[in-house]
């Protein structure tokens, strides 16, 4: 039975650099679960100044970003807590938000996009296009990433909605 969780950055101030807003890595030890990413979003509430912003959904191998610890939150009250716990190092089975450092690990871009900050950004794939993350031989995590610092660094919201399968 699947359970849905949000991994969200709320009203954060981003570092003035390329920055990861939300990041997780699937567990590599029992209980192992596959995580399906089927929604991502980003928006800012600082001002009404129009600006374009690049955004990516990408995977990253070690070394991972340095994050603020944040565990995924359940959407349905009756669900159990996520198997992913909060962590700062992007390690297996952990998640976090608002990276202070990106880490040297290479990123593989799955979805590159751009948006106007006045409208925000929402990614909703078709059912066939969802991203699946599970433990692999080469450990890698999954992140919502700005490849360039935004013009306004304050009051950013963003995150991922993931489904734990099994």
């Amino acid at each position, binding site marked *: 039975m699947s359970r849905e969780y949000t991994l969200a950055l709320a009203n954060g101030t981003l570092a003035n650099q390329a920055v990861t807003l939300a990041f997780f890595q699937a567990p590599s030890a029992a209980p192992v679960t596959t995580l399906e990413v089927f929604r991502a979003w*980003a928006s800012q509430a600082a001002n009404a100044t129009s600006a374009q912003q690049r955004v990516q959904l990408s995977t990253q191998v070690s070394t991972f970003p340095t994050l603020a610890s944040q565990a995924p939150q359940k*959407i349905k009250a009756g669900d159990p807590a996520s198997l992913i716990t909060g962590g700062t190092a992007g390690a297996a089975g952990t998640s976090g938000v608002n990276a202070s450092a990106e880490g040297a690990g290479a990123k593989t871009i799955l979805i590159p996009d751009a948006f106007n900050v006045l409208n925000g950004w929402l990614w*909703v794939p078709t059912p066939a296009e969802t991203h699946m993350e599970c433990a692999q031989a080469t450990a890698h995590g999954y992140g919502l990433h700005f490849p360039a610092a935004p013009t306004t660094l304050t009051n950013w919201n963003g995150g991922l909605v993931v489904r734990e399968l099994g």
Partner: protein
Amino acid sequence: MTDLMSAALGIDSSATKERWTHSNGVVIVMTDNNCFGIAAPEQRTPRVLSVEVDYRGKMMKQDFFNALNPYRDSLDVDLRECMIRVKEGAVVLAELGTQPQGAQYQPWMVWQGDQQHVTENYVSIPPALRIVDQVGALWTLGFVTAHASQSPQGEFAFNVIRDGFDVGEIASRIECRNGQVRIFTRHGWKRWLGREWSS
């Protein structure tokens, strides 16, 4: 100093309130009986200066004078709503006055802080995250994923949120089109008519 300048300018020094400025060798004095004077105390050679008077942000008078002699004038408008400007060519030497809108300026007459952004036509959720319609309502998709039987075929659909409240519809897309908000449901497009949806 203002009394001396008022005397030099021949302005009634009994006026209880004066405003003045001294900039770039030019003195401008205003009194509350709608008189003003301009002088260049250190000027020893002829020098042509211009004076401009703006009333409520619009120019109402322009004149020229020799800086060797004081310039005096009185106006039949409230000087508190005027800007007096002394120039030499295009260069502003001295300026004295109030807001361009004059004394009747109120903060609410101009935008304070960030303006509300009304979303442009043809913006769609997704890829936008939210839409602000003509009346300032904010539309977005919620986090309740609808069952496939409630969703347009081949698309994820979610509850539709307006200003934070669920409007009771399930849709995969929200669009702003011709000033109207419309949603794409399993039964096709629906338009928001202000209080209800079109069928």
